[in-house]
Structures are given as structure tokens and as C-alpha cells.
């Protein structure tokens, strides 16, 4: 092979490398366009159509949106969803902060074990966790029967299940591991030296958290908060099993619109409004972080 030919093949190979990588994504891109983007597009179109029982027809209208916004039921359920979502997110992040902190700064072999246990609990089935809390909190559940056999109570505690409290507990149980992982990643760039310096300068635990740690992890803590809030507020399974009547959430109603009620546009419009609220919250959090100048913390 002559030098010129060799150069030509080299150049061809280089061009191939330029084009090649994007081509590799083609099968996945095609699949995602057909099975992910197209469904969402159809879903959005549905929200603007006229409802028929378990079907849709023309003309295009905003009826579903005005119905979704003006329904008293939806408002009550939206308030429930927001409250439960906020409580779940606050408790998850508050609990995850010290756990992630320990995972980051403790020493010794137990860290790997704890990391495994935290992540493993993510894989303990979603439905099983809901069922577990029904077993724990039920009228004849483990908590009540334990307290009764210890003689602490005579009557089962009725406030443990079928309300917002039970839904919140189950949701924190489901989403806590995710919050820990997000925060653990958030703690990574904060070198132990920074905290040791604060300690050497006489900062106690409170001042260290308030003045050093929390500002540095504000951004990841808020992304964990948003993550838990979105998934909790849109949950439709947990409230059905442990929520009772006071713990019903908007997701249950959306699901019903598609399964038992058969009003597709209303269900589509309601869930798109939920999504719009989540996106708004995302931008509000980003804006707040920027105002507080905590969005781009430099660690060096």
C-alpha cells in the first residue's frame, strides 16, 4: 500500500469516526421518538379534544382544561397532593441530609455496608413497601398490637392509617433512598478539610450546618426535594391502599378518568396541569437559588 493510499484510508477512518458515533444512537433515537415522543404528543392532543365515553372526538376545545381547573373535587385533591408532596419531600430531605453526611465523612468499612443497605432498599418493591405500611399501621397492625400487648394502650390507635399521615410515611419510606443518593453526590465536592477548618475555628455542630454545610448543599438538597415532591405528589397507588378518604390525591382522580370514568381529555388535561405545576416549581427553585447566589458554588 502506498503512502498516499494509507493516508486516504486514515482520513476515511477519521471521517467515519466523526459520523459513526451519532449513527450508533439511531436505533434508540427511533425507538424513543416512536414510543415516547409520539405518545406524549398524542396525549397533549387528547387534552384539547372533546370527551366521549372512553373516546375522544373533534372539535378542539379548552373544555377539559376549564373543567379540570374549576372542579371543586380537583381543587381539594390538588391541595391534598401538594400537602402530602411537601411533607414527604421535607421529611425525606431532612432525614437524608444527616445520612448522606455520615456516608460522606465517616470512616471505616461500615460505610460500604450502609451504602449497600440504602441502595438495596430502593429495590425492595414499591408495592411491597405500601403493603408493609398497611401491615405496620393497620387497626390490627403490628404497631397497634405491639402497643396493646405491652399494655400501653387499650384501644387500637385509629389515627395511624387511612389518612395523610400514613400516605406520607409510606412515601418517605419509598423515596428516602433516592434523596440520600442525590445528597451523597452533593456532598462529594465538599472536602472534609473545609469542615475541619470550621471546627478548628470553633464552630459547633449547629454553626457548621447552618453556615458551612447547608449553603454548600442547598442546590442538591433542593433537587432531592423536587424529585421527592414530584414523585410523591403524582403518586396514585399509595393513597388507594393507605390513604382512606382524607388522603386521596390528584393522581387517583387522573387514573380514574382513564379507567373507571372514561373521560380521557379531562384526565389528560389534569395531568398536564400537574406537570406544568412541577415545571414551574423547578424554575422557581432555580430562580431562588440564583437569587441566593447558591446555584454555582465554587469548592476550590
Amino acid at each position, binding site marked *: 500500500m502506498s503512502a498516499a493510499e494509507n493516508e486516504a484510508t486514515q482520513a476515511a477512518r477519521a471521517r467515519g469516526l466523526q459520523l459513526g458515533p451519532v449513527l450508533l444512537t439511531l436505533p434508540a433515537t427511533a425507538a424513543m421518538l416512536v414510543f415516547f415522543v409520539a405518545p406524549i404528543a398524542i396525549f397533549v392532543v387528547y387534552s384539547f379534544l372533546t370527551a366521549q365515553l372512553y373516546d375522544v372526538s373533534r372539535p378542539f376545545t379548552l373544555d377539559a382544561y376549564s373543567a379540570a381547573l374549576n372542579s371543586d373535587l380537583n381543587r381539594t385533591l390538588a391541595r391534598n397532593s401538594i400537602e402530602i408532596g411537601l411533607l414527604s419531600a421535607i421529611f425525606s430531605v431532612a432525614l437524608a441530609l*444527616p445520612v448522606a453526611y455520615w456516608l460522606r465523612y465517616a470512616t471505616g468499612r461500615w460505610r460500604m455496608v450502609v451504602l449497600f443497605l440504602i441502595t438495596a432498599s430502593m429495590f425492595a418493591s414499591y408495592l411491597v413497601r405500601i403493603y408493609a405500611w398497611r401491615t405496620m399501621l393497620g387497626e390490627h397492625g403490628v404497631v397497634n398490637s405491639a402497643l396493646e400487648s405491652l399494655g400501653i394502650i387499650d384501644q387500637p390507635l385509629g389515627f395511624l392509617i387511612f389518612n395523610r399521615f400514613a400516605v406520607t410515611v409510606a412515601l418517605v419510606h419509598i423515596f428516602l433512598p433516592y434523596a440520600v443518593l442525590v445528597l451523597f453526590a452533593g456532598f462529594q465536592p465538599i472536602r472534609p478539610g473545609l469542615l475541619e477548618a470550621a*471546627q478548628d475555628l470553633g464552630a459547633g455542630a449547629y454553626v457548621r450546618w447552618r453556615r458551612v454545610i447547608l449553603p454548600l448543599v442547598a442546590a442538591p438538597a433542593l433537587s432531592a426535594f423536587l424529585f421527592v415532591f414530584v414523585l410523591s405528589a403524582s403518586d396514585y397507588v399509595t393513597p388507594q391502599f393507605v390513604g382512606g378518604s382524607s388522603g386521596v390525591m390528584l393522581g387517583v382522580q387522573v387514573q380514574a378518568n382513564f379507567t373507571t370514568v372514561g373521560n380521557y381529555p379531562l384526565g389528560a388535561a389534569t395531568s398536564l396541569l400537574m406537570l406544568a405545576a412541577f415545571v414551574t416549581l423547578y424554575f422557581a427553585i432555580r430562580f431562588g437559588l440564583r437569587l441566593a447566589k447558591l446555584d454555582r458554588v465554587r469548592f476550590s
Partner: protein
Amino acid sequence: MTVRSRGALAITIAALLFLYVPLAVVVLFSFHETGSLSLPFTGFSLRWYRFVLSDPGFRSALENSLFVAAWTSVITLLLGTLASFGLARTRSRLRGPLALLFFLPITLPGLFIGLSMLVFFVRVNIDLSLTTVIIAHCVYVFPYFLLIAIAALERLDPALEEAAADLGANGWLRFWRVTMPQIWPLLVGATCLAFALSFDEFVITFFVIGPDGTLPLYIWSQLRRTVDPSINVVSTLLMTVTLVLWLVAFLFALRAARRKAASGDDLVAEVVPL
């Protein structure tokens, strides 16, 4: 001097108890000799396991779940490996939009994904079946797989591939003999993760399932009918499968981290991309 963390340790232990006590209770009562699900625990028996294992409904649900999870993880492994190479190696302007497309499903609530898929399948006249469940699971699992695969590829030392290229290895040879030996443990881990996520998925599956149910659907219908330890048995079996898969994935990630890490590096931090 190290940072004091006694309070954090106490809360970590409390969090682990909070996470594990309810699950332990579920497992414990799967061995209960009576049908009661409250204390006192009267004695051990395997009768509920015999009961569940002889239930044809459970067996077909288990088979369906294995079928769905197997296909989901194979498809995800193929499309995900290709896409991760494409995304990690390209300098094209398409990179940003493609990443957005691939990672969007992770940010959307399952309710939303499930419903839009239901509407889509109804609209294009595809009957709901295990096939539609596999399609939905692939969309759901894909970003998780991609996240790990891209992290694995970006941690590679490009000098190794360049050296192989200089020595005359073509693209395929470099892929099989240089890149693959470095990343396969994480790909195995990511495939296990895909299997486990699919095996346990309920929120999306609920909307796209046909007449044949999967294991989580089986639990769901049981939960609505009766409450006896047979649910605990199915729950325990389901958790065992996903936990074993996660253990395998975790050990592969640990192995990859050990190989990669210099002696001073923090192994715990290295495992986290998984």
C-alpha cells in the same frame, strides 16, 4: 482530626431501622403458621409458601414477569450500549438534544408516562399485551442504563484506545479487545439493574398491561381482595429476586471501582455512578 459525626450516625441507624423494620415484618409474617398478620407471632410454618407456589395464578405471573424483564434487559443492553457509545464519543451538535430525549423519561412521573403510552397504544390499535409492557419498560429503564454506561465510558483512559489504533487495531478489534474488557462489569451491573427495575415496575405497567399479569400486578390484585400471609410470601419472593440482582450489580460496580481506583481513592464514592 476527623469531622465529628456521632449525631449523624444515630440518625443513619434510625433511618436504616425505618427502612428495614417494615420490610422485615413483611418477611417475618410470610412464615407465620396462622393467617393472622398481627402480633403475637405464634410460630413458623411454610404453609403459605406451599399455598402460593401451588397457585397457577402466581406461576403464570412469575413467568410473565421473567419474560418481560428478560426481553427488557436484552433490548436495553443492545440499544443502550450502542447509544452510550454514540453519546459518549460524539462531538456532534446533536449531542444535547439526544441526551435530552434519552434522559427525559427519568424526570417524568410514571403516571404520565403510563397514561400517554396507554393512549398511544389505543390510538394506533396495538392490543395491550406483554409486548406493550416490554415496550413501556424499555422506555422507563433506558435512561438508568444509559447513565451507568456513559459514566463507565467517560471514566476510560482514551490513551489505551489510541495506542491500540496506532498498533493497527480497527474499530471492532478496539471495541472487543480494549474497551469491552474495561467496561463489561458495569454493563453487567446496569443490565441487572434494568432487569430488577422491570421486574418490580408497577406504576407504568398498570396502564399498559393486557390480559396476562405480571408479579406486581398479581400482588396488586391480591391486595384488593384478601389480606393474608400469602401476600407476604409473594412480596418476599419478589424482593429476593430484585435484591439478589442488585447485590450482583453492586459487586460488579465494586469490582470495577477497585480495579480503577488508586489506593488513596474513595471506593464508596466510586461505586455511586451505579
